[in-house]
């Protein structure tokens, strides 16, 4: 190396190379969105009614262009029975994946996900309690909604707890993760107690809830999740530069770059917990997406969060939609729960990625 004293020349072309580099990232992003759209259409075309890819495309477009005539039957299959399911899968994948990126960003630890903070076991506990006791407060709702609401409330309460615990001794990344992990075990223990004393029927319902499924989804569920995501996602995007700073070398470096680390950490924990809570209350515990999708995206595009966040979202959606399709066709007519398939699809991808990675990020 020689440090140059000639400080005025800036004709190295590095800036242009960087611009090309950004352009390529944008291209990757666009292509992956396109692939996701194709995957969605393909996923809608899979099922007992035997619709072709073309028929599905026409039925999908028929909603927006009234000049296209679509058979009533096709339209109803696509829009009433299949699209809600696929759309919830898309939203779930996006939400979980973005939550994962946020959590990994603020803890500087690539192995952390919202589930590390105990959100999933809190939801499982909430669902178990609702199944066991039926929570009379919400009698006007159907049983499914009682379960969803209780699971959601437990997630939120749990997040607040993690937060208060981590506040006792500043909000450092380590305290956050440790507090979350401790609570995680605590909820699991209570859930196990409930399992232990539950009737066989209730036990089955509890275990089934944690599997996660997109079966029987309606547009109203999709609407609730979309509203939450529409509010939270822009707020996540607002933090991209702060996340970049926090992943570049720890709290002190981030603060020396003008980042209010405590504030970003608070915002991110709240956002990712809210998103995760909403998603898993409706779908059950789909865990692995939070870890695989962000890592795949980082592997492809690097950890510039301006690009990482949207790419991780599309990868997450691809993973859940793809897993849902696999779960529907592999043992037809039995439908495998998404959470199981996600792991079967995700683990090989994950291991492939780890083994081919150029650098070791787990030093």
């Amino acid at each position, binding site marked *: *190396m*020689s*440090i*140059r*004293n000639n*400080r005025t*020349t*800036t004709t*190295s072309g*590095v*800036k242009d*190379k*960087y611009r090309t*580099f950004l352009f390529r990232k944008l291209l990757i992003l666009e292509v992956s969105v396109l692939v996701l759209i194709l995957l969605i259409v393909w996923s809608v075309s899979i099922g007992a009614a035997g619709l072709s890819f073309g028929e599905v495309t026409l039925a999908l477009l028929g909603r927006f262009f009234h000049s296209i005539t679509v058979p009533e039957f096709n339209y109803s299959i696509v829009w009433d029975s299949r699209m809600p399911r696929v759309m919830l899968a898309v939203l779930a994948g996006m939400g979980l994946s973005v939550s994962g990126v946020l959590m990994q960003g603020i803890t*500087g*630890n*690539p192995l952390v996900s919202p589930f590390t903070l105990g959100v999933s076991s809190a939801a499982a506990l909430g669902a178990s309690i609702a199944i066991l006791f039926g929570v009379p407060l919400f009698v006007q709702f159907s049983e499914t909604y009682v379960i969803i609401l209780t699971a959601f409330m437990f997630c939120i309460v749990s997040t607040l707890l993690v937060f208060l615990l981590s506040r006792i001794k500043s909000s450092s990344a380590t305290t956050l993760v440790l507090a979350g992990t401790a609570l995680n075990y605590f909820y699991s223990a209570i859930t196990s107690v409930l399992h232990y004393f539950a009737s066989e029927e209730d036990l089955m319902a509890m275990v089934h809830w944690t599997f996660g499924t997109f079966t029987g989804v309606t547009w109203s569920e999709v609407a609730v999740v979309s509203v939450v995501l529409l509010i939270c996602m822009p707020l996540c995007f607002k933090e991209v*530069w702060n996340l*970049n*700073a926090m*992943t*570049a*070398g*720890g709290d*002190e*470096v981030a*603060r*020396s*770059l*003008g*980042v*209010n680390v405590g504030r970003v950490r608070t915002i991110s924990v709240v956002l990712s917990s809210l998103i995760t809570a909403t998603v898993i209350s409706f779908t059950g515990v789909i865990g692995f997406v939070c870890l695989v999708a962000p890592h795949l995206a*980082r*592997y492809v595009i*690097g*950890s*510039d969060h301006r690009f990482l966040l949207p790419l991780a979202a599309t990868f997450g959606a691809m993973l859940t939609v793809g897993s849902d399709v696999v779960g529907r066709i592999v043992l037809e007519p039995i439908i495998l729960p998404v959470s199981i398939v996600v792991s079967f699809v995700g683990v090989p991808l994950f291991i492939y990625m780890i083994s081919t990675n*150029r*650098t*070791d*990020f*787990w*030093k």
Partner: protein
Amino acid sequence: MSAENLEKMTKDVCLQIHGITFGYSSKREVLTRVTFDCAKSGIYAILGPNGSGKSTLLKCIMQLQHASAGAVLFNGESLMDKSVRELSQLFGYVPQDCSTNFPITVFDRILLGRKPYIGWNPTDYDLDMVEKNICMFGLEPYALKYVNELSGGERQRVMIAAALAKEPQILVFDEPTSSLDIKHQIDVMKHVRSIVQEKSIIVLIAVHDLNLAAQYADQVVILKKGSVFSQGAPGTTLNKENIRAVYDIDVAIYKRGDVNHIVPLES
């Protein structure tokens, strides 16, 4: 040279550290009433054995840690009242450990140095500053490589480039040369000196290598158990008695010109 640069050259900079006291817990103080002045631009080496509070002092000066008593003044203004953003524009910080768990490119890392000025999209000027610093440190071949893939010395250069990209008025190094071989150590120090001369900024460096401090620092501040033991020009301050008192070792000192060469003696 532009008018702005001329103004910078003539403007006096002055950093006053006054009675800084700090402890991570209330029982034990890491720093006790540390007081010294950096009255003009130059390289100020902070010396002292492990645990004497060098890194903590730097963090207190940058307001990354908040001192329980005392004040830090820059050009007469207290830094305690400044916002995080204002502070980040003032200080360039090169940490001791600059590893990361995430795949971030050299260009992006140096661009982050501009973060205190970036709203959403980096401006052309931001990118120019990054390019300039990449060229200055000969990092062109690595610009789009991940920081993790570089050697320790290359990574150190990236961090220094990132700290300089924000055009700070005070540059703070925590053990900048600890992971560098002897040639790179000298290169970095020479470079820092030329930056000081060109931009008339204050450079605070925590170092272990007494010879490096003797050769390149304008002033040395020796800490012992959280207090300033001695401050002054390296030629006079780095003497046998002081080193004996602070490090508890005997040394021989050879003078070559103005520079002291310090050789530890086995006892």
